[in-house]
């Protein structure tokens, strides 16, 4: 006769326990399960993907109805156990059943903690524990509107992300100063907050909920500081507590949770407990890994095999698509601990290992969690890491890896990596064509695939691919190395940044095998520009990789002082601006004031520590940086045009101002100067500018590639245009093409010489779709570029640049 095993609760822990038990002794027990939820066993970890709409309930079921039938298990769905009679060894249910047991397993899980603020029981206030909660949230989100999630822990953030995904306007209210403070340290919490906010979710930390407002249903949340947040849905996710009331009623020992020993036995030898409802050696658990460990132990105990649960070290992962974080163990700071930290701000990566006695005891990873499992394994094994300590933080691949060979970066590219940006040709297409058609030269590859057939920027890469495919029989022409730190040329570097999606200087140096630890004054500014141009809004500028002028937004002079040039749009100024400039010159004792060739005013001889003060006064008069120091848009020189001139054919001044307002702030491979002349007499000298517009009766001549440097270059007429809108579109598109293709420190004429006029003409004049795409990318990049750098620094950014570290002049004088 089989023993009767009753199980109260049908969550993931008893589900896993039953799998083990059935495997060991399928006939030993006659099993009955009581589940308060009207469902089978499903994967609660996957509730977040259900909420965000990425998965359905059916996809997260672990044990379907058939499983229970096949294994002869009786499942009472929607039946709540209300009492245990330990003397009679029976249980009773809310629908009047009484069932006898030989062995009883309590797996009642946990209940959400509800803060008892006024209004907590209004309709529209939900917790986040089971599928009913998720269904209610999805229903509520149909009406869009505002949701407030109280609690910035694991569950709260998953709920917030899911609701935002469903189209709600979500605010997270968190009591502590940083998010997920139990799993993350402050640095990782900061990165998480930034990323959550980028998804349009508002995050209020250090915010205490005072009351939930509303008459018949939720209308808002009031915080301690008086802030009122409107809300049609409030999710409370401030924590869980073990659900031990049934056990307590039955007289079992219950502290925070149902107390169990190492065999998962409660204070009654025939009653066991597992999962979130238990307390083992003083600890309670809310994550799945320890629950599964308990399940294994209990299954063995039930078949009289020796087994002991020794507690768990837990690891956390957040299940929000696109956010990668991992934490495990103990990562609090203490005297006897050491830490290894790796930060890569540009990529939003933060890795921290906490060591004690040569072993990992805790880890926090953010942004790059690939090595989480490995670190966690080392942590659980208590492995001695002394041997690999130097490279440990870089992860398993690095700790055991060998250096890459020169071709490896290209060989490692996936087949779908785009090699030729002009003609949209990917790696697989090129290598495929070489093999299929027996191609043996660059010209043949160009003819068949069109790769490298337009601007030629990808020639180096295409040659490497031919070399890789054909082996030693092909010797690619070596492209000129960008500097002594690398063998790669500028084109190769630019294409590989895109193909390998490299988004920081350390990533480029790592992946492209830089020979120096932190580059040099040639490659770093180039890489900084390439990354900025390739990943607008994503790449974080590396201040230390900029030449001093771009770092402090002024021009260094021979005596170490600086010059300051405010922008004068299209060369236009006002009496008020001139007065402000004069006042600044007086106030800061600026020795020289000069009119520049770009139609603006240069203040020379400004002391570095005076720069923020000078800028503040110029800002106050409405002026911004003229970027006279930048590899970027400098000036737009104009003549007076139809406004005043008897020969003027168009409003050259107005067009110049429009062009300058459109293009200012953009970073380019070298300086870019524009000119707009109102008639072919060309008083604005437009035909020696990088881009020059000459107005004519029928419209505008669009000239490019002039310069008045060591070599004087007259422009080339690219095309004639009819409207100002066209001029703006062509200018944006041309600047973008230059930004995307040119080598750092090549002006437009040098770039044009390299890629050829035909290639530029084809992409800017003949191919309208491509021109408009280039224009759109320029507009997108400008969204992030048009910030006045002076105002940022007046507001305090990089303040260390403008202050001495220490001033010893007074103490020395006193000696």
């Amino acid at each position, binding site marked *: 006769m089989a023993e009767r095993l009753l199980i109260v609760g049908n969550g993931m822990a008893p589900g896993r326990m039953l799998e083990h038990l059935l495997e060991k002794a399928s006939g030993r027990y006659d099993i009955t399960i009581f589940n308060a939820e009207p469902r089978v066993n499903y994967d609660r970890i996957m509730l977040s993907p259900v909420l965000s709409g990425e998965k359905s309930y059916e996809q997260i079921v672990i044990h379907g109805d058939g499983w229970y039938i096949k294994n002869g298990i009786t499942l009472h769905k929607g039946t709540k156990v209300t009492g245990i009679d330990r003397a009679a060894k029976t249980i009773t249910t809310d629908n009047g059943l009484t069932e006898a047991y030989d062995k009883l397993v309590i797996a009642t899980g946990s209940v959400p903690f509800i803060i008892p603020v006024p209004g907590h029981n209004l309709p529209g206030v939900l917790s986040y524990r089971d599928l009913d909660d998720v269904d209610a949230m999805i229903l509520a989100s149909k009406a869009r509107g505002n949701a407030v999630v109280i609690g910035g822990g694991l569950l709260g953030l998953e709920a917030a992300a899911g609701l935002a995904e469903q189209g709600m306007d979500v605010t997270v209210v968190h009591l502590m100063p940083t998010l997920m403070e139990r799993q993350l340290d402050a640095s990782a919490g900061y990165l998480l907050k930034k990323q959550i906010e980028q998804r349009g979710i508002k995050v209020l930390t250090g915010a205490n909920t005072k009351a939930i407002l509303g008459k018949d249903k939720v209308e808002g949340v009031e915080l301690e500081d008086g802030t009122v947040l409107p809300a049609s849905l409030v999710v409370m996710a401030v924590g869980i507590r073990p659900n031990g009331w049934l056990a307590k009623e039955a007289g079992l020992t219950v502290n925070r949770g149902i107390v169990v020993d190492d065999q998962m036995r409660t204070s009654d030898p025939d009653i066991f407990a597992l999962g979130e409802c238990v307390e083992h050696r003083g600890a309670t658990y809310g994550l799945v890994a320890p629950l599964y460990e308990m399940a294994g132990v209990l299954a063995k105990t039930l078949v009289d095999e020796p087994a002991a649960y020794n507690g768990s070290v837990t690891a956390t992962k957040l299940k929000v698509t696109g956010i990668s974080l991992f934490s495990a163990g103990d990562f609090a700071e203490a005297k006897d601990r050491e830490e290894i930290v790796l930060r890569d701000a540009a990529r939003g990566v933060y890795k921290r290992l906490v060591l004690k006695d040569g072993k990992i005891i805790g880890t926090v990873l953010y942004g790059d969690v690939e090595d989480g499992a490995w670190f966690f394994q080392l942590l659980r094994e208590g492995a001695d890491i002394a041997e690999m300590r130097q490279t440990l933080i870089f992860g398993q691949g690095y700790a055991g890896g060998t250096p890459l060979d020169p071709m490896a970066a290209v060989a490692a590219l996936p087949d779908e990596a785009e090699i030729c940006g002009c003609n949209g040709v990917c790696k697989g297409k090129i290598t495929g064509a070489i093999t299929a058609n027996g191609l043996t030269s660059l010209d043949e590859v160009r003819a068949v695939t069109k790769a490298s057939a337009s601007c030629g920027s990808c020639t180096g890469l295409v040659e490497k691919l031919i070399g890789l495919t054909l082996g030693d029989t092909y010797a690619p022409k070596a492209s000129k190395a960008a500097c002594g730190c690398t063998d790669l040329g500028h084109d190769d570097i630019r294409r590989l940044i895109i193909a390998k999606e490299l988004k920081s200087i350390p990533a480029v140096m790592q992946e492209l095998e830089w020979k*120096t*630890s*932190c*580059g*040099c*004054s040639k490659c*770093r*500014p180039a890489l900084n520009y390439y990354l900025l141009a390739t990943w607008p809004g994503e790449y974080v500028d590396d*201040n*230390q*990789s900029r*030449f*001093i*002028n771009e770092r*402090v937004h002024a021009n*260094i002079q*021979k005596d*170490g002082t600086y010059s300051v040039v405010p922008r004068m749009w299209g060369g236009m100024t006002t009496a008020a601006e001139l007065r402000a400039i004069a006042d600044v010159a007086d106030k800061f004792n600026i020795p020289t004031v000069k009119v520049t060739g770009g139609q603006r005013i240069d203040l020379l001889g400004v002391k570095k520590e005076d720069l923020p003060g000078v800028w503040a006064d110029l800002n106050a008069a409405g002026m911004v940086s003229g970027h006279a120091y930048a590899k970027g848009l400098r000036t737009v020189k104009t003549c007076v045009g139809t406004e005043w001139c008897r020969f003027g054919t168009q409003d050259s001044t107005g067009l110049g101002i429009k062009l300058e307002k459109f293009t200012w702030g953009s970073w380019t491979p070298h300086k870019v100067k524009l000119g707009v002349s109102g008639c072919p007499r060309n008083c604005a000298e437009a035909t020696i500018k990088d881009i020059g517009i000459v107005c004519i009766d029928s419209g505008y001549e669009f000239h490019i590639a002039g310069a008045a440097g060591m070599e004087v270059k007259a422009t080339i007429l690219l095309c004639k245009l009819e409207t100002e809108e066209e001029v703006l579109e062509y200018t944006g598109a041309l600047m973008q093409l230059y930004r995307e293709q040119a080598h750092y420190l090549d002006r437009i004429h040098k770039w044009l010489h390299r890629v050829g006029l035909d290639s530029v003409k084809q992409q800017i004049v003949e191919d309208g779709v491509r021109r408009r795409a280039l224009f759109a990318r320029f507009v997108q990049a400008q969204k992030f570029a048009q910030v006045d750098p002076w105002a940022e620094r007046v507001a305090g950014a990089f303040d*260390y640049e403008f*202050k*001495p*570290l*220490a*001033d*010893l*002049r007074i103490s*020395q*004088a006193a000696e």
Partner: protein
Amino acid sequence: MKMSSDWLDIGTLNDIPKRAARVVKTARGDIAIFRTMDDQVFALDDKCPHKGGPLSQGIVQGESVTCPLHNWVISLKTGEAQGADQGCTRTIAVKLQDGRILLSWPGLAVKAA
């Protein structure tokens, strides 16, 4: 052995970003304090041996700095110009102790007029 009073506390390592420099003003001219990528600290007269350019404003690469005026590369360890260029900038003893930067006080005083 140097007396501890020979060392002047001029700030913390974190006052200087990695691969950057800041200036200490003294009665006899500026001293540039450099911090490298791997957190070494160096102190040099803030004057390029070429034309006196402020080295503190240059780009720090490994253990050298490129002068902002004419791209001379100066070793932070020795003050010597690198490559074909000839010249030397005075270095001043500096050390790190518990995250604080200590500058040699006698080192400052013996500066040639």
